[in-house]
């Protein structure tokens, strides 16, 4: 993980004594401190003498953490599957492979559906981003990115553009034109700039705002038109691997999951971390909101998927089996939220009954790790992307 702290020199009013003088700008992972050199030295000396302050702060944070745990434990009056006892058991699910999309030359790392329910965009390790028509298997557009490992791609809500990013540390927006002869790569526009790889991206409710997550530990909200950073979200202490926007029209929160085993919920306007969930034993590879927006699921390298309730502020279900030992890389809910599709590193997709906590089905077919599963916007199909260079449509 890259070190975020560096020093630069500017001139202006000091944050501490308000006198205008040359400032030492220190960025400590989450906040910028602009002190004049005198106040900086005072702070350093005080830091040494205030060993007690540090200890008392640590004590307070420990007591707060304990209090949080107690509060959360108090709410655990019943398990989710107990509440769901009266719900009828799922029958056999008649889901099988209906289409296989071949064309990528290397591992397919990400995919996203278009709102028109038939087009989808996929990106792969060979740097190619392809827009497909899932009904006809036609490749509508193909763009070659200058970097390999395009780890994130997203379709704009209007269907007129796609965003993609990866090892180039950037997220670019490519407008899709109807003219097939036009060179799309030339119209590519870099929007997001991070200091490490881009792991996830999504448009917000409009084509003009892009939310990205990065290996530099931060998430950021960008204005597509100007490329300006609108808000940044700091709080993860390791790479952020995934993010998902809350489903409501008016909602302005999103959830992110990362290598620090934490899933954080953020307020997009203030940049504030509203809630934090730490119950996984390993990196969280993917997070996805429940369709109602009151909960979310996460997939992790610890071979479990977990379900977190936002209003109870705790984990309410764990989807695991002794026979599943490979990490889960991706999750998505079906339209009603009853089914959770999870892709694993053992090349399978397990379908979990969200309410009862049991496995409803297992989908076989891919010949390498599953990198992404996504249910189509109208819920009729599931698309999975894998390291075997193909995408599959299941219905």
């Amino acid at each position, binding site marked *: 993980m890259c*070190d975020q*702290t*560096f020093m630069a020199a500017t001139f202006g009013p000091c944050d501490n004594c308000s006198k205008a003088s040359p400032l030492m700008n*220190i960025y*400590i*992972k*989450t*906040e910028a*401190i602009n002190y004049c050199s005198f106040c*900086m030295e005072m702070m*350093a000396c005080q*830091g040494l003498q*205030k*060993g007690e*302050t*540090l200890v008392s*702060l640590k004590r*307070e*944070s420990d007591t*707060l953490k304990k209090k949080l745990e107690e509060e*959360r434990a108090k*709410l655990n*009056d*019943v*398990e*989710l599957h107990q*509440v769901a006892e009266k*719900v009828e058991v799922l029958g056999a*699910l008649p*889901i099988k492979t*209906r*289409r296989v999309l071949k064309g990528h030359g290397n591992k397919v790392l990400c995919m996203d559906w278009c709102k028109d329910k*038939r087009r989808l965009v996929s990106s792969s390790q060979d740097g190619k981003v392809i827009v497909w028509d*899932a*009904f006809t298997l036609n490749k509508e557009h193909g763009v070659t990115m200058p970097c390999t490992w395009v780890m994130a791609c997203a379709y704009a809500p209007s269907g007129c553009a796609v965003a993609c990013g990866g090892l180039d540390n950037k997220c670019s927006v490519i407008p899709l034109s109807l003219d097939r002869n036009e060179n799309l790569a030339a119209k590519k526009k870099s929007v997001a700039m991070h200091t490490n790889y881009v792991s996830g991206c999504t448009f917000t409710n409009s084509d003009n705002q892009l939310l990205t997550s990065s290996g530099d530990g931060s998430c950021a909200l960008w204005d597509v038109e100007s490329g300006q950073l609108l808000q940044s979200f700091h*709080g993860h202490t390791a790479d952020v691997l995934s993010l998902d926007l809350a489903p409501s029209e008016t909602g302005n929160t999103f959830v992110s999951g990362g290598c620090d085993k934490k899933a954080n919920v953020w307020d997009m306007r203030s940049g504030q*971390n509203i*809630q934090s969930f730490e119950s996984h034993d390993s990196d969280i590879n993917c997070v996805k909101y*429940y369709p*109602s927006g*009151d*909960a979310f699921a996460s997939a992790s390298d610890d071979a479990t998927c977990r379900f977190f*309730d936002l*209003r*109870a*502020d705790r984990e*309410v279900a764990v989807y695991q089996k002794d026979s599943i030992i490979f990490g889960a890389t991706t999750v998505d809910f*079906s*339209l*009603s*939220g*009853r*089914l959770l599709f999870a892709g694993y590193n053992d090349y399978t997709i397990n379908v979990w009954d*969200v309410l009862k906590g049991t496995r409803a089905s297992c989908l076989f077919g891919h010949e390498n790790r599953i990198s992404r599963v996504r*249910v189509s916007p109208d*819920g*009729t*199909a*599931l698309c999975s992307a894998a390291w075997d260079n193909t995408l599959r449509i299941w*219905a």
Partner: protein
Amino acid sequence: MSGKMCSSSNSVIQAQKLVDQLRVEASMERFKISLSAADLVKYCQDHRRSDPLLTGIAASSNPFKDKKSCVLL
């Protein structure tokens, strides 16, 4: 990890940030699982009929399923 000059004051600042964050989280209003889980279950039940992957829809209306129709000429 951070600038060597102010490492001790950095940890004070970091500890302060952590305490502030925990205070924000502690002040959040929480609901019992029996209530919030009931809402989750209700959402599922309300929308189950409109979930094609759950209930399965006829091949004729699902563009991905092959239509098995035989035309007798």
